[in-house]
């Protein structure tokens, strides 16, 4: 099929799904938002962006003043790419539209890991003004420094439509940091983001996403991951600041033997915020593995923490760990771990725990000389510390800094 034909088919499917409510999360009236932005201008040198925007971006892990720590950068403001660059061989970073023109094979990766008619949000992206990044690691290329991408919401009442394609060719290795943030704490906005990941044979991708939204923003990411033989996909998701409503439930399919998917999520939120965040993994090939770990802290808002592992092949192994901490009187955490085994010889397990900080633990630390506040902070810090295997030290440091910042948010 030609590009034009496939595109026509997707538009039709999207039109048919434009009223289709998502199966999870509060329904959002997209008509209240506009897709037309103010056509922000392209910046060759991203360090020339306004200082305030740069600070917001830095909070979300995107460094523009010292690009030596990054192998590439993509910045999107509202629905317009304002910068994209690469500083290392072996990796490609460009707006997705540009990749569409450059490569004939793009349709193979378009709406393939995520269905265009999954719900009204995916449909909306296809039918309206959108942009997104294309990030690709070339075969056998291993990049040390991460590629960074920032999705920045600037205009009030805007719906940001994002469609990202990430491809790790055979035996490549790359790290991606995506920071999502907003210009203002008061304005309303809607962020819709599709991300399709293709992890080829023996490739490794770590994807670190930091959400630093504001209390009036609604967020509906839609991610799909396809992992081939021996491939590894590792997602680290950090929600640091309260957001009005956020629902996402990315789906990773381990279709190749010994493929591995790992999801670590750290969710920190407060009053007035409603989160429904899960991770799903299908273990469809022999020897596939997964580990889903989530930590949730609320000081008043509602968090639904989901996890789903399905074993469909022999010798697969999966573990799910969901832990929630309620600080203060009013928060709600609802952990929903699910396991499904479709044959014998699989090994799936889960553990879930929700509660407030145990007084016995606080007193144990106090008996060592810490004040009640210090003891509580130590326990919260420990709770949020998800040890992530295989993360390069530099990324681990950045993630730790981000977690420490979110810890300040709750204490």
């Amino acid at each position, binding site marked *: 099929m030609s590009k034009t034909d496939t595109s026509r088919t997707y538009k039709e499917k999207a039109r048919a799904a434009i009223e289709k409510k998502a199966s999870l999360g509060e329904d959002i009236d997209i008509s209240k938002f506009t897709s037309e932005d103010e056509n922000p201008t392209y910046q060759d040198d991203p360090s020339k962006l306004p200082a305030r925007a740069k600070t917001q971006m830095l909070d979300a892990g995107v460094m523009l003043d010292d690009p030596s720590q990054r192998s590439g950068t993509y910045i999107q403001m509202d629905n317009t790419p304002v910068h994209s660059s690469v500083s290392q061989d072996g990796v490609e970073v460009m707006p997705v539209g540009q990749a569409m023109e450059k490569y004939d094979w793009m349709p193979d990766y378009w709406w393939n890991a995520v269905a265009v008619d999954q719900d009204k949000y995916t449909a909306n992206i296809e039918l309206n003004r959108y942009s997104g990044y294309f990030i690709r690691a070339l075969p056998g290329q291993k990049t040390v420094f991460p590629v960074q991408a920032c999705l920045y919401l600037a205009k009030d009442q805007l719906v940001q439509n994002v469609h990202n394609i990430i491809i790790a060719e055979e035996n490549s290795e790359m790290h991606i940091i995506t920071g999502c943030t907003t210009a203002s704490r008061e304005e309303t906005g809607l962020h819709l983001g599709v991300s399709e990941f293709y992890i080829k044979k023996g490739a490794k991708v770590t994807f670190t996403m930091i959400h630093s939204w504001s209390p009036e923003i609604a967020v509906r990411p839609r991610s799909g991951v396809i992992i081939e033989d021996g491939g590894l996909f590792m997602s680290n998701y950090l929600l640091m600041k309260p957001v009005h409503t956020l629902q996402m439930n990315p789906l990773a399919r381990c279709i190749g033997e010994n493929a591995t998917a790992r999801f670590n999520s750290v969710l920190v939120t407060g009053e007035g915020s409603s989160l429904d965040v899960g991770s799903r993994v299908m273990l469809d090939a022999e020897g596939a593995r997964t580990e889903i770990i989530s930590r949730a802290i609320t000081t008043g808002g509602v968090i639904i923490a989901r996890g789903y592992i399905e074993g469909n092949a022999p010798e697969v192994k999966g573990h799910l760990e969901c*832990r929630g901490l309620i600080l203060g009187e009013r928060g709600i955490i609802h952990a929903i771990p699910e396991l499904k085994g479709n044959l014998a010889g699989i090994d799936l397990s889960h553990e879930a725990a929700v509660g407030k900080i*145990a007084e*016995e*633990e606080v*007193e*144990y*630390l*106090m*008996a*060592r*000389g*810490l*004040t*009640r506040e*210090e*003891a509580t902070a*130590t*326990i919260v*810090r*420990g*709770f*949020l*510390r998800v040890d992530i295997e295989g993360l390069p030290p530099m990324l681990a440091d950045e993630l730790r800094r981000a977690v420490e910042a979110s810890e300040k948010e709750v204490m």
Partner: protein
Amino acid sequence: MLKIKDLSVAVEDKVIIHDVNLTIKNGETHVLFGPNGAGKSTLLMAIMGFPKYRITKGSISFKGKDITNLSVDERARMGIGMSFQRPPVVRGVKTQDMVAACLQGRGDGDTISQLAEKADLNDFLERDINYGFSGGEVKRSELMQLLAQRPELTLLDEPESGVDLVNIALIGELMNDLLEKNCPIQQRKCMGLIITHTGHILDYVNARTGYVMCDGTIGCVGDPHEMLATIREKGYEECIKCYLGRLPLYE
């Protein structure tokens, strides 16, 4: 000096400890014997200041200051430290974080690894505190934390229980270090109160004063080695019979 006067302690409205009197002078280590359920741990928890262990009568003073109404952390910072019989697991808080907390800014990363070396817990520093630790590992970790804290008064709740023979000598060594048993007597400042059910630890740590506790009261004071001999020979029942009918002890 630790001075406990007429102390009664209640847990959830039930008085468990009755009119206990006990004085430990600087440099001394005392031993508390007693059958299960006698109230030994309750007494230690009350000295440490856990709110669940409510003092209904009497007073505790330490270094000349009345600490009856001080919080746990205030007492810890004054120099009281405790090894727990069954400390909680704190997920996410690593053993080295606990040692660092105990150090309160003294020492550095090397200090922590030296302490771990001493307690044979090198491989445990990165692990969540008490998570999946064996009985002996818990005890050694408790003592390692106390060595970092360096309390003037060390409260040890059954430091030998669940410890195998190979490790008990090491536990004894760590205790002797904590209680300054290697210093000349005149220079010793540190005090200790050790609970032991079996008395095994006396083979490793020297002490001159012992008590037998039963039903929340202290029945007799004496040489701990002699007491232990009686307890071993005749059992706690005989030992208690002997002091039943005697008047409670006052100074």
